[in-house]
């Protein structure tokens, strides 16, 4: 096992920066480092971009890569938080209905935008979709949590089964919305259900970045309490943790950030599952290190996956959610098999 010290975090951050540079440089229109530097220089001196490459860099590539990183960080942090909360290593926003609920909430806005009062729209501004997504996500997460909960903790089987059911409800809700939608809206719902960063812009980067930063500083304070929760709610309470208060808070923060991410980029599964898992194998389960490390690694993986989505069929684009699912699902099944979860009720890391 590695020590999660300063060197570890420095290396991880260096890898992230390298991945970002590669992701910015490559694509349908390649951008060189000189062009990036030129664009930054022109931007700060208040001039327009000198050429198409600088414009691509400033208006498309950079916000897109940043949004990837932020969303990757949000989904991975959410994985860590939800796994800690449910005391179960296979929980992930895509599996327990959070994302599907958010998707349903957001699809309502897409389709029924005309019937929402303009005054309400003016009030919420760019937060309209995230707000609806938050509503849907909260309902779905709460439903899964309540239904799967037995007396002491949440069993893997119950959680997966209830997750399937709630996901199905969310999906059919979204499906119904796209059914009653007129064509262009339906297409945007489909695209967005598969998860894509193609709509990335500075506004989304600003909002998600703000939320991600805010929630990181709010949740990292609970790292110790989440560690204590590993022992069980009862033991945690003997250690002075108010478990139900902790759960309410974490659940709220988590749902908020996943909703905002989902509202802008759609449903992206398995990132929140794989990233914390890899890091637990590398540095252990101390949430104080696991949370920031997962955010960095999640950002890096998301940005590389989106690069794949952009270049595999260039100039066409594959929705990134398809790639994460294609990579994530086999890894997930392999994990379940390796740890014997499919055959018997068993631990994951034993």
């Amino acid at each position, binding site marked *: 096992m590695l020590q999660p010290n300063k060197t570890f975090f420095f290396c991880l951050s260096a890898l992230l920066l390298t991945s970002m540079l590669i992701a910015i440089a490559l694509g349908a229109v390649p951008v060189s480092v000189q062009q990036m530097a030129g664009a930054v220089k022109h931007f700060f001196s208040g001039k327009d971009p000198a050429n198409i490459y600088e414009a691509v860099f400033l208006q498309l590539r950079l916000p897109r890569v940043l949004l990837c990183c932020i969303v990757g960080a949000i989904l991975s942090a959410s994985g860590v938080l939800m796994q800690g909360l449910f005391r179960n290593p296979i929980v992930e926003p895509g599996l327990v209905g959070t994302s599907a609920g958010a998707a349903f909430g957001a699809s309502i806005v897409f389709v029924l935008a005309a019937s929402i009062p303009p005054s309400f729209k003016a009030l919420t501004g760019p937060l309209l979709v995230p707000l609806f997504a938050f509503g849907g996500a909260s309902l779905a997460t709460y439903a899964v949590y309540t239904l799967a909960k037995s007396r002491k903790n949440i069993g893997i089987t119950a959680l997966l089964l209830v997750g399937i059911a709630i996901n199905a409800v969310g999906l059919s809700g979204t499906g119904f919305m796209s059914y009653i939608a007129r064509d262009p809206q339906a297409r945007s719902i489909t695209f967005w259900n598969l998860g894509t960063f193609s709509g990335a812009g500075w506004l989304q980067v600003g909002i998600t970045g703000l939320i991600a930063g805010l929630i990181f500083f709010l949740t990292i304070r609970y790292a110790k309490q989440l560690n204590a929760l590993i022992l069980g709610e009862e033991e945690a309470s003997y*250690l*002075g943790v108010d478990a139900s208060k902790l759960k309410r808070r974490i659940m709220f923060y988590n749902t908020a950030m996943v909703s905002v991410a989902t509202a802008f980029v759609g449903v992206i599964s398995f990132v929140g599952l794989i990233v914390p898992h890899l890091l637990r194998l590398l540095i252990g389960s101390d949430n104080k290190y696991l949370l920031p490390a997962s955010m960095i690694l999640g950002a890096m993986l998301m940005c590389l996956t989106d690069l794949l989505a952009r270049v595999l069929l260039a100039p066409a684009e594959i929705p990134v959610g398809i790639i994460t699912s294609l990579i994530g699902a086999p890894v997930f099944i392999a994990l379940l098999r390796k740890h014997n979860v499919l055959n018997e009720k068993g631990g994951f890391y034993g």
Partner: protein
Amino acid sequence: MRKEVSMVRLQDVGFEINKKWLVKDLNYAFEPGKMYMLCGPNGAGKSTLLKLISLQQKASEGNIFYNEANVKPGHAASFATNRAVLSQQIDISFPLSAEEIIMMGRYPHFEVKPSKHDVEICEQAIALLELEPFRKRNYLTLSGGEKQRVQFARVLVQIWEEPPIGSRLLLLDEPISSLDIKHQLEFLFHVRNFITPKTIVIAILHDLNLALNYADELLLMKEGRLFKSGKPVDVLQPVYIEQVFGVHSHLHHLPGADFLWAEKL
């Protein structure tokens, strides 16, 4: 907010679930400096009583006093620095090393980073309980007995030092059932050494012979009620054993120890 414990007193405590009284009419005062053991058949309400005392469950009737203050489950967190509980079995689903688990016992004592003092206390506990060989190992790969010893260390470091005022309270729910005989004796030896004039220990124990020889006071429970309490030799008399457990037994006084054996059915 940190609160003190110096004496634990139960007043008419009862606990009801589905119209069944698991604990009823419990009146007792636990005093510092002593080891109390709860004995009784399965379903006699021992674990429930321990959960009531540890403020994990809310009593359906009656009052629980720490010192002279009436306490409720809502206060549980504020006693974390001077009340520790060792549960029967603790399952976790994430990989943590034994020493990380032990350090959790110090969580109520520091905010973000453990102080040198916290680390020092954990080292002492690891040395005391001879956990050095597997301190770095993944808790999930330990045997049942090793897990129990790690949890014992965690609970001890939580209340390692006597509080400046009041006492510390150690609650043990069948702490030795997964240990072999040597580790059982070592465990009880460490618990006995842990008792100071400012320490209350309350343990549930199934082994009547160990209870007989290690307890200061013994509480015999039957059907949720306190059947008999007092010195172990006075309580574990064959006549009471028969009434509570329904078995015939004989009590012998050997040099240096008492010995209770039960007849074959």
